[in-house]
C-alpha cells in the first residue's frame, strides 16, 4: 500500500466518525497541552529562582545573625536574622583577616513607611556600605551611589530601586520610573533623605523582587533608623568559586573567636554559601517540575487509553471491511499499517493542537506575571514524540488484532 493511499484511507476513516475522532483527539490534546504548560511553568519557576539567586551577585557568601539561644539550649529562639550579634567591627575584621576576599559589605535592613510629595509606600530600606553595588551586581541607572565619606559622615542620602521609585514618583507607560527623581527628597521615619540615584532593574518577581527597595548609607541607617550598632547581614564576595568553602570556614572561625564561642554548634551567626542556596533551590524546583510533568503524564496516559478504546471499537465495527480488504488482496501488513496510521493520525493531530494550546496556556501564565515561562523546543519535540509514540503503542494492539482477523470469519461477521 502506498503512503498516499494510506493517508487518503486514514482521512476518510477519521472523517466517517467525526465526533468520536474529535473526542479521542481531545483526550490527547489535554494530555499534551498539560505536559507542555506544566513543564514550562516548572522550568520557568526554576529559572526565576535561579536568576534571583544569581542576581544577588556572584561568588557570594552571606553572614547573618543566627538564632540566639539561652543557656542549656532550651531557650526561646529569636529567629534567624532577627538576632543582634553582628557589628561593623565584625565586618571590618573579616575584610582585614580573611584571605581571597574581593569585597565586604555590611547591611542593615528594615521596613519603613516612606513619604514623598504626598504619596507614600511601605518598603525595605537597606542600609549598606559603599562597596555594596560591586558585590551585588547593582547597576545605577540615574545619578550615583553614595561613597565611603557620605557613609562616614552619616549623610542623609538615598538611592531608590526602580519599583520603589515608580511607586513614589509615578511610572512611564512601560513601567519604568519617571525621570527627574534625583535631587528630590523622601521622608523615612520622618527624616528627610535626599535622593542621589536610581538603580537599574534587577528583575526577580513576586517575593523575589529586588527592585522594591531603598538604599541608604549603613551608618546613617544605624543612627537614624534602627537606632543601634548591629547589622542584619554581612555580604562577602569571594575571589572565585573555588575558595568559597575555605572562606566559609575561615569566617566561621574568626567570628566564633570574636564572639568568644567555643562550640561551633552554638554559633550566634550563620555563614551561607550562595552555591548551597542555588543547589537546594534547584533541587526543589527540579522536583516540582518532575511532579508537574508526572501529573500531566498521567493525563496523557489516559488519552492514550482513549485511543486504544476507540481503535478497538473501530476494528470491531469494521470487521466486514477488513474481511473484504483481505479477500481482495490486502496483506496483514497493509491492514496493520492502515489501523496504526489512524491511531497515529489521532495522536499527531492531538499533539499539534495540544502543543499550540499548551504554548497558549504557558503564554497566558507569562502574561499574568506569576512566573516567567518559556516553552522550550525540547519540550515540544518531547511532547510530539510522546504523542506519536502513544499512538503507536496504543494503536498497535488494535491494529494487530485487525491484521490477524481471518478473512472468512471477518466476511461472515454480522
Amino acid at each position, binding site marked *: *500500500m502506498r503512503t*498516499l493511499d494510506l493517508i487518503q484511507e486514514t482521512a*476518510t476513516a477519521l472523517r466517517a466518525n467525526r465526533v468520536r475522532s474529535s473526542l479521542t483527539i481531545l483526550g490527547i490534546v489535554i494530555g499534551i497541552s498539560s505536559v507542555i504548560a506544566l513543564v514550562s511553568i516548572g522550568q520557568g519557576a526554576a529559572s526565576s529562582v535561579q536568576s534571583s539567586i544569581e542576581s544577588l551577585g556572584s561568588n557570594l557568601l552571606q553572614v547573618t545573625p543566627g538564632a540566639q539561644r539561652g543557656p542549656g539550649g532550651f531557650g526561646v529562639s529569636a529567629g534567624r536574622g532577627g538576632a543582634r550579634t553582628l557589628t561593623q567591627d565584625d565586618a571590618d575584621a573579616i575584610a582585614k583577616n580573611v584571605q581571597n576576599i574581593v569585597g565586604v559589605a555590611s547591611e542593615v535592613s528594615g521596613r519603613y513607611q516612606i513619604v514623598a510629595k504626598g504619596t507614600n509606600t511601605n518598603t525595605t530600606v537597606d542600609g549598606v556600605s559603599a562597596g555594596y553595588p560591586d558585590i551585588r551586581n547593582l547597576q545605577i541607572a540615574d545619578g550615583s551611589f553614595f561613597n565611603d565619606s557620605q557613609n562616614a559622615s552619616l549623610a542623609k542620602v538615598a538611592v531608590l530601586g526602580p519599583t520603589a521609585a515608580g511607586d513614589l514618583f509615578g511610572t512611564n507607560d512601560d513601567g519604568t520610573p519617571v525621570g527627574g527623581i534625583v535631587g528630590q527628597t523622601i521622608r523615612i521615619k520622618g527624616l528627610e533623605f535626599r535622593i542621589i540615584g536610581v538603580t537599574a532593574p534587577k528583575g526577580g518577581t513576586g517575593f523575589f523582587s529586588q527592585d522594591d527597595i531603598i538604599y541608604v548609607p549603613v551608618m546613617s541607617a544605624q543612627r537614624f533608623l534602627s537606632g543601634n550598632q548591629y547589622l542584619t547581614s554581612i555580604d562577602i564576595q569571594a575571589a572565585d568559586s573555588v575558595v568559597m568553602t575555605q572562606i566559609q570556614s575561615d569566617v566561621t572561625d574568626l567570628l566564633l573567636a570574636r564572639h568568644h564561642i567555643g562550640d561551633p554548634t552554638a554559633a550566634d551567626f550563620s555563614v551561607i554559601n550562595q552555591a548551597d542556596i542555588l543547589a537546594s533551590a534547584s533541587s526543589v524546583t527540579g522536583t516540582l517540575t518532575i511532579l508537574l510533568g508526572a501529573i500531566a503524564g498521567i493525563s496523557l496516559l489516559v488519552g492514550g487509553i482513549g485511543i486504544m478504546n476507540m481503535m478497538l471499537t473501530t476494528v470491531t465495527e469494521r470487521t466486514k*471491511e477488513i474481511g473484504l*480488504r483481505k479477500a481482495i*488482496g*490486502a496483506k*496483514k501488513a497493509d491492514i496493520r499499517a492502515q489501523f496504526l496510521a489512524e491511531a497515529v493520525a489521532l495522536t499527531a493531530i492531538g499533539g499539534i493542537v495540544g502543543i499550540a494550546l499548551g504554548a497558549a496556556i504557558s503564554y497566558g501564565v507569562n502574561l499574568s506575571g506569576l512566573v516567567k515561562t518559556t516553552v522550550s523546543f525540547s519540550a515540544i519535540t518531547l511532547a510530539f514524540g510522546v504523542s506519536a509514540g502513544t499512538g503507536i503503542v496504543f494503536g498497535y494492539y488494535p491494529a494487530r488484532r485487525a491484521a490477524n482477523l481471518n478473512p*472468512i470469519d471477518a*466476511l461472515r461477521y454480522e
Partner: protein
Amino acid sequence: MIGVRNITKTYGEGATAFQALKNVSFDIQDGESVAIMGPSGSGKSTLMHILGCLDTPTSGTYILDGKDVSTLSDDELAKIRSEKIGFVFQMFNLLKRTTVLRNVMLPLVYDMNIGAEEREVRAQGALEAAGLSREFETHLSNELSGGQIQRVAIARALVNDPTMILADEPTGNLDTKSGETVLATFQKLNRDGRTIILITHERGIAEHAGRIISLRDGEIVEDSKTHTPRKIPHAHA
C-alpha cells in the same frame, strides 16, 4: 486453469472432527462458466474459500495457473488473491461513503506495481465491462440501487484482470429483475473470455452457467455440461 486434486477439508479434531469436503477433484478450463451448487452444509462454501485462496485444504492439491497454492502462507495467499481472483459477494461489501470509482479501484491499492493513473483507467474499463455507465463514477456507493451496487462489485472483481471471478450467491440479495441483470452481466463477461465460478443453492441460478458441479455432504454428486445455458429473456446488460 484450475486443477483440484483429491481435496479434503476437515474442521476440528478427534471425535468432533467434521469433514466438509471429501476427496474432491475436478478441472476448470480458462473461459468456462461453472456453477457450484448444493444445499447449505454441502461444502460449497468451503470449496469456494479454497478456490478463492481464502483457505487451504487439509489434504490434496489445488493448482492455480500451474502453481500449487494449497500450502501457501496467509500473505502469499493474499498476493494470489490480489493477482488472480475477483470476488463478488452476496452482501456486496462495498465501502460506504466512498465513491463508485474508489470502490472499484480498491483491489489495485494493494498492488504496488500499478500507478494512480493506470488505476483510474482500469477502473473505468472495468465499470464499462460490468455494464455501468460512467455517470455513476462519482456517486457514493450507498446512493445506488441493489443491481447497480452488485455491478460495481463485479467491476471491482474485474479490475485486477483476474484468472477467475468467484461469485458467492451474487443474486441472493436482489429482486428477480436485478438478479437477472447481474446474471446477464456474468454471461457477457463469460462470452468475453472470463472464467466465472458461480456459487449458489438454486438450480435456476446455476442453470445460467455452462457447467454445473453439484455437491452434497462434501462430495461431488453431479458434474454436467448444460448444453443450452438458460438465456435471460429481456437482458439489458
